[in-house]
């Protein structure tokens, strides 16, 4: 049985105005637990959204999302401060998502694709606009999944998360110009995919 008794996990109730500074200050005090609490509160949702779009599955996204913060905790004391903690977290999440994509690719090659589980019915589907919006999002999600995982990661980091190319380059250890070309090539593919689904942007 596990114990969660850790005084250093205490956090003030107020929202932290500068999570980067608060987390780094906690690390300076040698308190990685407080730093992780700050990061989970500040970046938990955006990292989850990125994972969700990368893997396209709630359960897997939940697993990778949690794994990202667990690995972050294990690496926090060695955090080199060459990037923001936010960029660093996205780097961990991206690695985990790409690992999953590789495993899934190997499994498909050996055993063939599994049938996808049926989507649960949407709650509150009475508003037409909401439905239309939802189906646009679904179409875009499906189109994103026609891209390779590396390209999908770059597109999401650039547009969904608003990271700059130098930031993405740092976390992917690739060159920014190569990433720019990759994303610029992906955008027309996404657009055409949406057009084919009758959802031209």
């Amino acid at each position: 049985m596990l114990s969660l008794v850790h005084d250093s996990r205490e956090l003030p109730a107020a929202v932290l105005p500068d999570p980067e500074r608060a987390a780094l200050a906690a690390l300076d005090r040698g308190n990685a637990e407080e730093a992780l609490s700050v990061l989970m509160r500040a970046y938990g949702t955006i990292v989850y959204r990125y994972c969700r779009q990368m893997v396209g599955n709630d359960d897997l996204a939940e697993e990778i999302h949690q794994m990202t913060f667990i690995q972050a905790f294990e690496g926090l004391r060695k955090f080199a401060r060459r990037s923001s903690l936010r960029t660093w977290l996205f780097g961990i999440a991206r690695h985990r998502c790409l690992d999953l994509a590789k495993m899934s690719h190997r499994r498909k090659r050996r055993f063939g694709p599994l049938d996808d589980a049926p989507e649960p019915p949407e709650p509150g589907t009475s508003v037409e606009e909401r439905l239309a919006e939802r189906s646009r999002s679904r179409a875009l999600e499906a189109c994103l999944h026609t891209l390779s995982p590396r390209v999908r990661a770059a597109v999401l980091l650039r547009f969904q998360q608003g990271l700059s190319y130098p930031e993405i380059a740092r976390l992917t250890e690739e060159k920014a110009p190569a990433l720019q070309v990759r994303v610029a090539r992906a955008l027309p593919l996404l657009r055409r995919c949406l057009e084919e689904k009758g959802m031209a942007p």
Partner: protein
Amino acid sequence: MTHAITPGKTRCGRFEAEAVLLLEQGRPLDEHFSSCPDCLAERTAYERLREELHSLGEEDEPPAGWQARVWEKVDRRQGRRWAPWWRRWILPIGVAGAAALAALFLVRTPATAPPGLRIGIEAGETVRRGTEAQPGDLLQLTATTGDAPHTELRVYRNDTELVLRCSTEPPCTRRGEELSASVVLDGVGRYQPLLLLSEDPLPDVASDLDTDTNAVLTSGAGVELGPRVVVR
């Protein structure tokens, strides 16, 4: 440069061929792109695509209780971590010595079991093992509370609804250091059992697993998470 998009209709292809990359590189576009109607329309379409990508997944939220589960896994992994090489020798020797002393001491002192939480699921004539259950099944909780003066059993459904909370009063039953209770799993969802242990009275509840767990940890109390039960 033109290319066909639909039969009988063509459009200027320079925007996709040149401008999409120039915009990603943060470089200026030449005159053509501000005067060519096709390119202007293309630019609007790509800006819309960027906006849609930006708002993609805006409704997605991590499941409630995820922070508690991260801490749980962090603790589990830390418990499993390899010790440094010198500790592999020093620690067993120390532990063996301490165990010998403890054995001598325990001959005369009654043992205090460490705190823990076990669950069982009862369904009429059959008992399902593991953490899968069906609506109507009975979730039984049995906790060892050690010597903590304030203890509580709780069960949250879907991390946002408190369906069981008791201490010494029914439905909790206390026998020595053992605290037990049962609750009917009357709907589908995920049920998270918790044992809370504290030296001081426990804080009020907000019926949200994350909020309540943070409040309990902040007050200096301990939390034992039981296995999550999924009712389908």
